[in-house]
């Protein structure tokens, strides 16, 4: 049976009175690129910290590769590489020396450093002090640190922060290729849908510590496909009529967005609104982008 690299079940975490994560459950399939999306402050970094054992959940369980994290933290961390937010680097050491610190901690062979440096294309500048690196180079060195020892699971929190477009493209390509080339499962957190959408095979969206969506990219695209848009002279009344009929409708200025619920809907909605004394000036079925869907879930 294939072990699930990450399984989070009903996890809660609070800081004082602030609830950071509320009953979150996730299941990350093996060799997937799992995009973990949410706006800033949604609870992404807290979740990643809990998965790495840096913080303890107040309630709920986290298991990695089918084993509980709380009982076998050290053995499980041996199979994981991570880059949480900005890379943690010693600026007074060279790139190679930075990796050497982690190589010693992991007890790996010297060859592991060259492998990691090659993977992020930093061999040429490995002897330079990190304080002289550009932010893109630092980010790549952080990735090399995470890749040391060929981990089975890679947790990357906002890995393209501070990168120029070329750097973003490189990281994206690397992340996309990792499952195929190295058999790695990638857990990729970001607040930018566009960044994750292009590489993720699976996605989860959280907002205010709660899971709003989890599934494959195709499922997300299916769910976010269409929306009926209405413009009317009395948007408030139109909105009240629609919600009174049990429809899921949101108001944006004089526009009302209605989730489709069956066949021939536009005509029925038009008839119902006109019958209710509302003059409809625009009615159409529009394709809603993933971005709109993401915003709709998280706002």
């Amino acid at each position: 049976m294939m072990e699930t690299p990450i399984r989070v079940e009903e996890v809660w975490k609070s800081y004082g009175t602030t609830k950071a994560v509320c009953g979150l459950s996730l299941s990350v399939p093996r060799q997937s690129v799992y995009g973990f999306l949410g706006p800033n402050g949604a609870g992404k970094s807290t979740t990643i910290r809990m998965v790495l054992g840096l913080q303890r959940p107040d309630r709920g369980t986290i298991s990695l590769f089918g084993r509980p994290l709380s009982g076998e933290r050290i053995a499980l961390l041996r199979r994981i590489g991570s880059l949480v937010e900005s890379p943690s680097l010693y600026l007074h050491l060279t790139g190679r020396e930075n990796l050497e610190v982690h190589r010693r901690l992991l007890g790996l062979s010297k060859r592991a450093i060259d492998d990691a440096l090659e993977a992020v294309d930093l061999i040429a500048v490995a002897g330079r002090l990190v304080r002289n690196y550009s932010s893109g180079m630092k980010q790549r060195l952080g990735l090399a640190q995470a890749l040391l020892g060929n981990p089975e699971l890679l947790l990357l929190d906002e890995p393209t922060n501070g990168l120029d477009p070329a750097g973003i493209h490189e990281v994206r390509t690397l992340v996309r290729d990792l499952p195929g080339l190295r058999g790695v499962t990638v857990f990729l957190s970001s607040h930018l849908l566009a960044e994750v959408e292009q590489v993720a095979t699976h996605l989860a969206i959280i907002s205010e510590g709660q899971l709003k969506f989890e599934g494959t990219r195709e499922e997300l695209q299916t769910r976010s496909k269409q929306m009926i848009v209405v413009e009317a002279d009395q948007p408030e009344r139109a909105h009240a009529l629609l919600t009174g009929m049990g429809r899921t409708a949101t108001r944006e200025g004089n526009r009302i967005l209605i989730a489709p619920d069956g066949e021939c809907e536009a005509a029925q909605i038009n008839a119902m609104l006109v019958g209710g004394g509302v003059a409809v000036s625009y009615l159409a079925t529009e394709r809603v982008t993933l971005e709109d869907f993401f915003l709709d879930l998280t706002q």
Partner: protein
Amino acid sequence: MTLLRVLHAEALKMKRTIALKMVVLAPAVVVLLILFAASQAPYSTLNFNAIGNKWTVLASLTLRVWAILMMPLYITLETALVAGLDHSENQWKSLLARPVPRWTLYVAKLLVVMAMTAASTLLLVCGILFDGAALRRLQTEAVFGFPVPWAAILRDGARVCGLMFLALTIQHWVSLRWRSFAVAIGAGIVATVVGFFAVAAGQQGDTWPQYFPWALPMLVVARQPHNIEAVLAIGGALGLAAAAAGCLDFCRREVQ
């Protein structure tokens, strides 16, 4: 085995750091200061003090400055600098996500600071020989004869180091507990100043102030009490307890 790996990694982190340069700089400052003061004949303590072996007097003078002034400030700075390496850039989220027990990171850092303190004290003891040789050339009044009482000088140096262990473990915990460099340095300076007063009170005859952790090393050079071995043992035990408590706190703490 894991502790050795972590210690190996900690040693590499020290490369090119001020903390490592301080190992040589701190004793060098004291050695040169003593050389300057002692060479100012006829006002030098060495010339006034007609009784006893000149080497013993020079060693006592050097260890006194080291124990009361330089060493408390030195351990304050070293513990803060060593902890600062991992507080900066929030290294903890990367280090503590590695498959090594947390206690090994705490203990390895403590061992690094202890090793640096011991190395500095050893260099200071070598500096006493340098000062003696230099004074022998500079002034004829001070006769530094042979043999040099190495055993006694080394024993006192080791005791000063040993009695600083308790203060060092407390300072190590403070430096790792609070991310702010100012907190670690502030705590060390306050403790050093309190240590001055404790030493002064001890010299007035008060018994208990001299057992203040930052004042303990002065017991060796100022009073040489008969119970010094017991003080060393109790100080060592309390130091181990402080290290264990600090380690426990470090292991339980969550990384933000």
